[in-house]
């Protein structure tokens, strides 16, 4: 356990000390909330009501966590630090959990900050917000697993393109956060429904509404993706560890 704590402590420090993490990870979702609330104040749109918008923003913010964890892992792979650590008594599980676990509290912190800002902007407090913050761990599981997979399989440059551009765009446009996905046509809707992003947003929205019966089937979609991705990510990480 000491070894895992030492390695995961390092992961958390590396992520938190990167100024981009603070800027994008925490600042950007908050900025989006402020901007869209401003639009809502001038031109009321149902989509931008805080109880509807905030759960989506918390899920969208998680895509940055994928980017940060993937960047750290790919950077470590490209440097000699990981080579050095492979020669220590750290086991494969220490590496995987050491990259995985420290990102989860950051996901929670990001979600807490988004809801605090939403409450300041006028969202009404309810106990469901607490449940929604806790439930964000489910999509976090998916996004962090994706970070582990991308970090293990891609170079630092590729991570920037795939996680930084492709994933954030998928997470933004195929999640129904800012507009109804029906507007994009049947084909895109079917495609979006086959991906976990829209389900993660609907899951959080259902919790905030207190409509717990509506959690399903979204929970299964997100959990299913999270479990499958974790298995693939662990396999790819172990393979690259062996190839090292």
């Amino acid at each position, binding site marked *: 356990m*000491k*070894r895992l*704590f*030492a*390695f995961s*402590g*390092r992961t958390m*420090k*590396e992520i938190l*000390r*990167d100024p981009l993490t603070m800027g994008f990870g925490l600042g950007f979702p908050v900025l989006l909330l402020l901007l869209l609330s401003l639009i809502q104040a001038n031109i009321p749109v149902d989509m931008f009501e805080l109880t509807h918008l905030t759960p989506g923003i918390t899920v969208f913010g998680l895509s940055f966590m994928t980017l940060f964890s993937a960047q750290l892992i790919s950077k470590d792979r490209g*440097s*000699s*630090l990981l*080579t*050095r*650590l*492979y*020669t*220590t*008594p*750290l086991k494969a599980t*220490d590496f995987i959990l050491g990259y995985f676990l420290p990102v989860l509290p950051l996901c929670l912190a990001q979600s807490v900050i988004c809801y605090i800002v939403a409450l300041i902007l006028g969202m009404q407090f309810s106990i469901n917000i607490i449940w929604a913050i806790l439930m964000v761990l489910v999509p976090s599981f998916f996004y962090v697993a994706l970070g582990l997979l991308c970090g293990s399989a891609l170079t630092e440059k590729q991570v920037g393109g795939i996680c930084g551009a492709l994933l954030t765009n998928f997470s933004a446009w195929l999640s129904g956060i800012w507009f109804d996905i029906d507007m994009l046509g049947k084909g895109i809707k079917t495609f979006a429904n086959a991906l976990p992003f829209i389900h993660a947003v609907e899951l959080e929205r259902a919790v905030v509404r207190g409509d717990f019966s509506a959690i399903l089937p979204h929970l299964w979609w997100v959990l299913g993706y999270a479990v499958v991705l974790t298995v693939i990510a662990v396999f790819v990480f172990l393979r690259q560890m*062996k190839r*090292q």
Partner: protein
Amino acid sequence: MKNAIEIKGLTKDYKDIRAVDNLDLEIREGELFSLLGVNGAGKTTTIKMLCCITTPTSGDALLNGKSIARNAEEVKKIIAVSPQETAVASNLSVEENLFLMCGVHGFDKEKARQKTAEMIEEFKLDRIRSKKASKLSGGWQRRLSIAMALISEPQILFLDEPTLGLDVIARSELWDSIRELKGKVTIILTTHYMEEAEELSDRIGVMRDGRLLAVGTAAELKELTGEDKFENAFIKLVKTTGKGGER
């Protein structure tokens, strides 16, 4: 004197390339042994196998009696590596990097504090202890990298091109640090710098195409080749051995 490392028939194949070819070598306890060779000679692959990063295709090596093929977990407890490039956590301070290594070796807080203080004193890192590793010069990063390797009290230390890219002063200071380690820990050093190998090593092994061409002290290798300068002896060995001039 007891052998710290016993290598028997160590071989590594990558697809159709044989990176290390049936290597046999014994290195004594407390010895500083240098592996020399041109690029692609098999030095780094040999080190990687001895550090249990790469699995040998065949053969084995015993590190203080522990097999790299059958007992990698035990081997990892008695070795440390300072890799070719500087291997430090860039956003962590000097002190935090040392603490990290204590943590991954399972030291308790008290021992970690004590060992960190020792390394800071030994490597004269006090002035920069709170500085982020990314803000250090190449020489200081390399010095920190070696301190990180030594903090776990290894019995065998691998230094892969420790002075690569350093200026003359930084190199000289690092040589002093390495000299102080001689006799206390078994050191295997790889380098491209002939004067470094001659200056620091007890014995030198010259590799080419994955094979060990010759082993001996710098003086013995010069005598073997009939050269006065060690660099010329190395060139002669690499150019002629096995190419009609087998030694």
